[in-house]
């Protein structure tokens, strides 16, 4: 999915052509134009927020000629009859203060005469100039006896932008708090920072690990072929990095693939190996911490009081963890299950929804499932653009078949068939 240089050149030429063609306006009489009524269907999740700088582009597929209209201020939209790609763009500021772009595309629309009505469904997307989390596989698989197998958990990052992003210095973290247990933490810092219990950073000077647009980064717990230990699993030996927890105790043994580089372990709450919460009650995220590791470890500890409230009574507690300021965070996904969700453990500006695998606590249907970010559209070069509105409920396809199971055609459940189709997001199939 790498954009080749020739494609970039083609694209530049196309842009020049467009500008040149734009100069040849008004060569046609008004009667030759077709008046088009454009009906923009705004995303349902919007609540009457004001949309700024909305515009509609009509691109004539025959001539390549582009006409730009402001919407809805340009009351008259008129183009020459022909075959068009119609694209709507706008921006809005969400209640959480994020700048969200709204886009919608209709491809190959035949406009023949005046009175044609075109409906465009639109969607929101954040403009983030960094990698995003595209998939988290935390549920694990099952062994033949029905026992859980958990070593095959992974996280995938994705370059959703149109340019190279360097993965160096991106920190993968797990929240300390659970989405299934709402507590009052004193002091409360949730509006400024995320409280984390595990942090693993992609090593590098800053320019060592370029990720092209449309390219994935696979971070694995144990980067080995898991089929040796569990025939129902798959291989993660091709991972880009793994988080390896070195220990001198056999009971805490983690497996290291010497061929896959290890993430730099900044902090972990456990002396045992770290694995993703297999019922999915945590938030996972990535951050770029702008200060060096020692300084961070020295200054960003966070000690807090809270009370565990149960039917039997309350238990006053104190814990110490680490905090990552919200402005350093690139992307966060809150995970939970419907029956247990109590709250999101990150500020609303980072994520106002949550994704899930399974529906109840200890749901046995959750195994072999992951959460995958939704496909919005494909760029011309075929690279997918994934949805990111900081609302994991809407941005993710929850409870879907993991991409690695699809790509490796391994089984999709205990006693089930192998995966046949490969999809972009667990739903939309990749058509050849």
């Amino acid at each position, binding site marked *: 999915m790498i954009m080749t240089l020739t494609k970039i050149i083609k694209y530049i030429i196309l842009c020049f052509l467009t500008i040149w063609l734009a100069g040849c306006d008004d060569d046609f009489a008004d009667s030759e134009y077709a008046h088009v009524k454009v009906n923009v269907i705004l995303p349902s999740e919007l609540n009457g927020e004001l949309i700024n700088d909305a515009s509609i582009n009509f691109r004539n597929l025959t001539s390549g000629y582009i006409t730009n209209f402001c919407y809805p201020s340009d009351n008259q939209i008129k183009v020459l009859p022909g075959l068009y790609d119609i694209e709507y763009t706008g921006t809005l500021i969400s209640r959480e203060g994020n700048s969200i772009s709204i886009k919608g595309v209709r491809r190959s629309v035949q406009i023949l005469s005046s009175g044609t009505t075109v409906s465009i469904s639109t969607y929101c997307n954040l403009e983030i100039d960094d990698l995003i989390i595209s998939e988290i596989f935390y549920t*694990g698989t099952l*062994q*033949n*006896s*029905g*026992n*859980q*197998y*958990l*070593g095959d958990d992974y996280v995938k990052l994705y370059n959703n932008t149109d340019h190279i992003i360097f993965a160096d210095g991106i920190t993968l973290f797990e929240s300390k708090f659970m989405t299934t247990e709402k507590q009052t933490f004193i002091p409360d810092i949730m509006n400024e920072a995320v409280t984390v219990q595990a942090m693993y950073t992609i090593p590098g000077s800053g320019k060592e690990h370029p990720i092209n647009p449309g390219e994935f980064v696979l971070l694995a*717990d*144990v980067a*080995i*072929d898991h089929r*040796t*230990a*569990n025939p129902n699993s798959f291989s993660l*030996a091709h991972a880009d990095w793994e988080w390896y*927890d*070195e*220990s*001198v*105790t*056999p*009971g805490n*043994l983690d*497996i*290291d*693939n*010497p*061929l896959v580089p290890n993430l*730099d*372990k*900044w*902090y*972990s*709450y*456990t*002396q045992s*190996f770290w*694995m993703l919460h297999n019922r999915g009650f945590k938030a996972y995220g990535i951050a770029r911490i702008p200060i060096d*590791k*020692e300084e961070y*470890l*020295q200054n960003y500890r966070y*000690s807090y*009081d*809270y*009370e565990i*409230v*149960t*039917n*039997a*009574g*309350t*238990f*006053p*507690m*104190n814990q*110490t963890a680490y905090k990552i300021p919200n402005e350093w965070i690139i992307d966060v996904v809150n995970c939970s299950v419907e029956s247990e969700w109590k709250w999101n453990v990150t500020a609303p500006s980072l994520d106002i929804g949550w994704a899930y695998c399974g529906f109840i606590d200890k749901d046995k249907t959750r195994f072999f499932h992951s959460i995958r970010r939704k496909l919005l559209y494909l760029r011309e070069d075929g690279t997918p653009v994934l949805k990111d509105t900081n609302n994991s409920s809407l941005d993710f396809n929850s409870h879907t078949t993991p991409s690695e199971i699809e790509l490796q055609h391994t089984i999709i459940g205990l006693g089930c068939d192998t995966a046949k189709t490969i999809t972009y997001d667990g739903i939309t199939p990749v058509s050849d």
Partner: protein
Amino acid sequence: MKKFILSILLIIIISLDFQGAIISGVVSDATDGTPLPFCNIKVIPGLKGITANADGRYNLNLPDGRYTIIASYVGYKEFTIPIVIAGKPLIQNISLSQNTLTLGEVVITAKESEGITSASKIDRAAMSHLQPSSFTDLLELLPGNISKDPQMGRANTITLRETGTLGATGTPISNPDYAITSLGTLFVVDGAPVNSDANLQTIGTTADASSPDYSRNITNKGIDMRSIATDNIESVEIIRGIPSAEYGNLTSGMVNIKRTRRSTPFSARFKADQWSKLIYLGKGFIIPHTGNILNLDLGYMDSKTDPRNNLENYKRLTGSARFSLNRMQNWGNIRFNSSADYTGSFDNTKTDPDLANGKIDEYKSAFQRFSASAESIISFSSISWLSSVELTGNLSYQQDVLERRKQVAPSRPSAAPTTMESGIHDGYFLIGEYIADYRSEGKPLNTFLKASVSNNLTKGNIANKIKIGIEWNFSKNLGKGQIYDLMKPLSASWSSRPRDYSSIPALNILAFYLQDLFSLKTSLGNMDFQAGLRGTTLPDLSRKYAIAGKIYLDPRFNFLWHLPEIRDLKPFVGGGYGLTTKMPTIDYLYPQSQYNDIIQLNYYDLDRPAENSRLNLRTYIQDAINHNLKPARNNKWEIRLGTSLGDNRVSITYFNEKLRSGFRYSNIYAPYSYREYDASSIRGSELSTIPTLDNLPYSDKTVLDGYRFVTNGTRIDKEGIEFQLNTMRWKPLRTSLIINGAWFRTIYSNSIVQFSPVNDVVNGKAISDKYVGLYDYNDGRVNEQFNTNFMFDNQINNLGLIFTTTIQCLWFVKSKLMAKEGRPTYYIDALDGKLHPYTTESEKDPMLRYLIKTYNENQFKTVKVAPAMYVNFKASKSIGKWLRLSLFVNRIIDYLPEYKVNDLIIRRKADAYFGMELNLTL
């Protein structure tokens, strides 16, 4: 041998002069004159008791003086007659008249003992009214206790005079650190202690609270009361105060069980409740022409922890044959009791294969105890320097088998250490699922021998009872021990190793005691003083132990002063002080060694993981023996006050006990050196077998690791007030009221400083690999509770009906976590293995600063549980001649008000526990 001793004794007796005379006669029925066999005859003063023979004849040898003879016989009214002995033989025939009521009034609760120390006495009638499933149920009658549901899915251990360990919400939790509570309570059956010192049935040293073994493990916890059936018990005395010096190897108190040794009709009991079914059959035979008695009984109980779950159950099978002989000779009296007993106690749990995807998870634990006892008491009526000789012996053999079978599915490739030796070895990779089998075979063998002599000296108003004795207790486990395949351990993070129990040395405990009970009759009332001294030693223990060769002396004193009576008012004051000592068990003296395995190389081969992977370990065998281990010792004192007024009795006891040397396993940290190999140069594709270590780059390192170590680190401080009031029966309603209860305040904590590692892994390094802090705080709780039980006891004799209504009020339960200091005083450093003071510099150190622990101040607030009130109802009714029907409902009514803890409203609920039983006597 016995005949030989007897003939010597006879010679001694014959050669002695006689003072006084023989009184003899026949006991018969007043209506038709038929002789009544084996009537009990008591003589006051002197409290000498004998039994008439099969023909109803009795004879007694008494010094000159005035006496009262009391004859009692089941179903007959008591007969009392004063007599005077003046050197001439006397014939006194006794005719007894039948008791017209079918049921006499009986005591159906624990009687507060009138003896020299505080004790509760529970007899047959109280037990049959209570309808117990096991001995555990009897404890409800002790002051401070309320009725509890049987918990057949876990070991039932005893707590005397304490709240028990409580969790953060004031609810009971089990904590093995305070096992001395039950280990320090002695159980004696017919004069012989039930020894649990050689019990070792556990699943390795890897504690797993979810394992069925965790709640059923009885090692170091004394007696599992589930295994004691109550049906053949005649009476139980639970000594809460300072026991006589005759009894030892205990810290807390003792349970003295006397079993039925008399002629009884054939009786059968069938009990059923929510959880269990119980059957008991028993009969006491008189062996014709000898007057000896043989009691035979058989009992079976089948119980479930949850009535809906057939796969988790507990079964008990008991059988007993007891022979009793009582011979009156003209020189004195011989009593000989012997018994042969069997107790089988079986725990089974299993996961339902249909519910768990065919997973295998089974646990079976069987304890089978075979025991033979003999006790002979020879009393002499005419030797001035010797009143009696007692000999007691017991031999018991247990066959304990614990089996666990489990499908283990490592959730990722894991590894198991497999070596039994120290040094450098390779571990074994656990890849994929397997079935693990674990078996522990324990065969504890215990022998007990005791000999004592006593002499009663009476001169005027002073009476002395002197008793001197010696006791030997032997325990040894002959079992094969833990048997399992280290390549198929019960869990993927297994670190324990198999252990052969039979190679563990035996434990010999030798004790002697002397005691004098000194009674004085004065114008200020009768005074009794008991002074005793008991010495305990471990004679054959290796000299490496500090405890070896030492004699631990327990001085014990009790007094009871009956103040002069003022009309019906009979007040008394009593009290005592004593030291009690419990020697360590076999497990505490010879704990299982710990294996510290340290990874030197962790290489996982990607292509051929099962063949070419290598986990190289440096293994240290850490001897967990503490050669400085001391016995656990408890300092007790108590003050008692009480009075009776007619048939009303009241008593109140304040007690205070301090135990600072209870046994526990503490974690000790030490540095271990190892070689860290760099696996990155290994090329999997070039390997044909496991990689060699020879050419690998390495660095030598040290790491801190913890190991279990037995210490005297447990503190239990007990304090409280116990009270009991029995009123006389109020005739119109035939009701008496019994009020008992207690206030307990118990402190459970560590008595020595302790290491406590932190879990943080910072910058790829585990803090505890390098530093572990030593914290000087008490990791414990201060618990308090106060309860009162009101029992209304109605006995309508002519209807054969007894019913009781008990209101049990638990006024409060309080628990407070003791304050903790989060800053360590010292820390141990992996580099030198030494303790360093934790300074202000340490606080700034990038790693050491993690050793400071923080606490929520609210954790240290007292949690108070609001009052709880329950009403229990029990009734038993005789139907016809042979049948008695009983039923009970515990918590038929409850009052559990809401209360607040840290602003949270707590609502409670209680379920009723009910059952019924049928008793047949033919």
